[in-house]
């Protein structure tokens, strides 16, 4: 039975359960809902929840576990002599999948009888031709063990699917029956329903933890895999980055770190002064009208997708910088439009609203009494800001800058399009360099084999990036929170 059908049947059972539970409760109260402990609809929902929730949970679990178990079992059928590495085994397994799916397709098409598909063997017929007949193209001829594995795969899937249908539907029916039997006028249906809802709410809230666990696990496993193939010391302290998919790559992270750091530094050098002064102006000087106009306008910059900034860097800022610093003008500092400066400037523009709106909040939360005190002593407004407000707001502003820095380090599209692809350690800001994020993209896009160190290194880079930004964020949030409490 196909998965969608099972799902729909369970939902229908739940709907029937709702009606059953409601009417049974009313009947037990001789039709007068005042005699019930809870409102009638709660009895209905109670039965519906018992019918749907456990069975759907089982269903979801089954959908995930069954393919994994079948995979494991089928893998054992392939003789160990026919492959030498994990990569070859994966290729064989994908052949198995393709043949199994192809047979399924042929049976559904009617070009192959269900029994005939089970009886196929490599000695009596050419599988490739049989499948090609029904419109499934195979890349190579089929070996005997692969066909056996594919047939086993199909058989197991079919058995698994029928067990799945039986188990899920039985559980739904059992839940329904159990809840219906429990329904009577004194049953505390509301409390039961609310308990279930509460646990669903908890489940939703813990999804955030699950996401983090998912991120950490997917990074950690692949990173460990990478360090088995490539020494960690060379990765962290290597000064050359030259991956080559043929082998013998040098994967030192230092040039990438340097590029990331340099670009972020330029970005912050643009964003921090502009953002900070803009925040001071809008919060301390501007009239409500100008403030109401300037703030949302600046925040538009934050709402523009990063791909737009990337394109802006690649096609507008790069060529204009070339026109000024390029070889044509005699300065000759710049060789191509993509450079640290290009990406840094554009990223700085992107970060302005980030710095300004955070600092604005923080400056606003400095108590007015501090300003009044300083102005009362005869200080001018700018002296008050420089000597009273800013020092009071300093920790918060540092937090804002750190958050902006973590944004700059994690930014991808601008550097992918604007910074170039060459990994080098250089001081010249007009040279092309590359960053951690840009290299994650370039190592994982394309047809790389996921088992090779050149692809796995992306996970190690991601891990490094994740750890750095996480530390920066935790530290910044801690500073901001600590500061906010100070004046509350």
């Amino acid at each position, binding site marked *: 039975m196909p998965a969608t059908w099972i799902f729909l049947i369970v939902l229908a059972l739940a709907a029937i359960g709702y009606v059953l539970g409601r009417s049974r409760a009313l009947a037990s109260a001789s039709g007068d809902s005042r005699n019930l402990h809870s409102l009638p609809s709660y009895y209905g929902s109670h039965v519906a929840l018992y019918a749907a929730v456990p069975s759907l949970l089982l269903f979801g679990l089954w959908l995930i576990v069954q393919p994994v178990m079948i995979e494991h079992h089928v893998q054992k059928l392939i003789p160990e002599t026919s492959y030498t590495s994990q990569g070859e085994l994966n290729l064989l397994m994908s052949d198995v999948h393709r043949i199994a799916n192809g047979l399924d397709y042929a049976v559904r098409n009617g070009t192959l009888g269900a029994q005939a598909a089970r009886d196929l063997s490599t000695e009596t017929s050419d599988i490739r031709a049989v499948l090609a007949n029904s419109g499934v193209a195979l890349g190579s001829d089929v070996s005997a063990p692969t066909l056996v594995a594919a047939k086993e795969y199909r058989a197991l899937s079919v058995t698994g699917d029928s067990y799945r249908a039986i188990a899920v539907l039985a559980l739904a029916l059992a839940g329904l029956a159990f809840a219906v039997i429990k329904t009577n006028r004194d049953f505390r249906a509301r409390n039961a329903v609310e308990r279930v809802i509460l646990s669903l709410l908890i489940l939703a809230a813990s999804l955030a933890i699950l996401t983090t666990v998912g991120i950490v696990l*997917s990074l950690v496993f692949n990173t460990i895999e990478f360090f088995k193939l490539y020494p960690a010391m060379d990765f962290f302290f290597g000064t050359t980055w030259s991956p080559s998919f043929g082998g013998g790559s040098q994967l030192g992270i230092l040039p990438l770190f340097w590029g990331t750091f340099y670009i972020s530094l330029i970005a912050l050098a643009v964003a921090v002064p502009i953002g900070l002064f803009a925040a001071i102006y809008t919060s301390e000087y501007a009239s409500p009208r100008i403030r109401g106009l300037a703030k949302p306008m600046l925040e538009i910059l934050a709402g523009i997708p990063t791909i737009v900034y990337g394109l802006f860097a690649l096609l507008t800022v790069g060529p204009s910088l070339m026109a000024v610093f390029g070889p044509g003008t005699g300065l000759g500092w710049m060789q191509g439009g993509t450079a640290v400066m290009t990406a840094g400037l554009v990223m700085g523009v992107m970060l302005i609203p980030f710095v300004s709106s955070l600092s604005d909040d923080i400056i606003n939360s400095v108590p007015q009494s501090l300003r009044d005190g300083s102005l009362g002593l005869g200080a001018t407004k700018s002296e008050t800001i420089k000597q009273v407000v800013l020092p009071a707001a300093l920790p918060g502003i540092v937090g804002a800058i750190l958050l902006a820095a973590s944004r700059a380090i994690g930014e991808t599209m601008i550097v992918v399009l604007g910074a170039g692809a060459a990994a080098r350690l250089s001081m010249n800001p007009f040279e092309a360099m590359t960053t951690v994020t840009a290299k994650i993209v370039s190592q994982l896009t394309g047809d790389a084999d996921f088992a090779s160190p050149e692809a796995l290194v992306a996970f190690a880079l991601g891990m490094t990036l994740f750890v750095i930004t996480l530390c920066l964020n935790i530290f910044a*949030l801690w500073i901001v929170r600590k500061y906010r409490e100070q004046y509350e």
Partner: protein
Amino acid sequence: MTDASISGPAGKPQLKKTSGSLLELDKGTRRRNAAEKRFRIYGMAAVGVGLIFLLVLLFTIVRNGVPAFTQTFIELPVELSEAKLDKSGNRDVEEIKKVTTFGYSGLINDALAASLVNEGITSPFKKASDLNKLVSSSAAAQIRDYVLANPDQIGKTVNFEVLASSRVDGYEKGRVTRVALVNDKNLDAAHLDVADQLKAAGTLKRKFNWAFITGADASESRPEQAGIGVSMLGSLFMMLVVLVLSLPIGVAASVYLEEFAPKNWITDVIEVNISNLAAVPSIVFGILGLAVFIQFIELPQSAPLVGGLVLTLMTLPTIIISTRASLKAVPPSIRDAALGVGASKMQSVFHHVLPLAMPGILTGTILGLAQALGETAPLLLIGMVGYIASNYPDGIASGFLDPNSAMPAQIYEWAKRADPAYYERAWGGIIILLVFLMTMNIIAIILRRRFERRW
């Protein structure tokens, strides 16, 4: 600062005596006032610089992107000669199909030559096939499709509007100059002379290009044919996934954290977790999607479903944070009143607090969706870039599961193709993307204005 002329202790310089008039500013005051003014100007300059950046950005986008919405077409009466298309003459579609697009380009060349003669333009080329470079290579396919759909038209002369080639289009838009064509094997300056004359004759026209908004992506050599429509559908399916998953899950999580969660370390861990997830670089979510959804669960690559799942995980923290803020804004008196008339805690939340917080929640959700719509980096890793979105999905299921691109991914793809004609498409795509984002933001603002309640 002070007028008191008490003589300081010995060794310290005497305070200079002021001129005496209160109406005249002394030097120190003037200096301080100047500093004040300077500081103020710095602030104004900073705001101004920010706004200038914004204007420059928007101006660049509009100036470079607007040309993408128009396209140069050539009106061409093509004689669908029976001898070439249907030798047997029995109008059997299967047989007509055997004539490939290559067979049709001869017809186009003849039609071009004929229309030059008609307009009294002398062709600078010896061979008719040299004119071929004026029209897009998609023209042959266009005519073939027409013939296959209307086999009865064979033998007649039909007026077609075929796309001009991208270089001609670029010339019309001022992107291509004669000087630049010297080293270009795709077009000669002589072609441009012909194009000019065709334009004067009214055969060559620039028109609004609907195909850019609704059409499919094209191969690298035919920028004139590429459109963003298919990837727009990809984005739509992704946003559906994000909406359907992130709104209920986000609301449920926020309701729990804001209304029910006991104050203990587990709740603290969840809260810290959410605020940190909101600041994790989006590329890391792409790695998560690649490792979990594609490698582990083995969902299909490039599918909008996977993109939607990844973006859901990425937007959830944003939605949770804004939902919690709007739940917090509902005053406790509402809860107390509900509890006072006998509602359970759950009832007070779901019947009273949540409906009152709904406008705020929807606003936050729309803004979260807008953020997800413009996000590119995670999509790079799950294979939505590099895929040429040339086919419309066949239905709902195929819309979710078949490989597709998304608007920002499509823009990135075009930017990578390193052809000025594709750069123009990329800018045009950005205009469309920004129009979507702006609409979403405006809806959010209207919602907030219309339903926001001050307690």
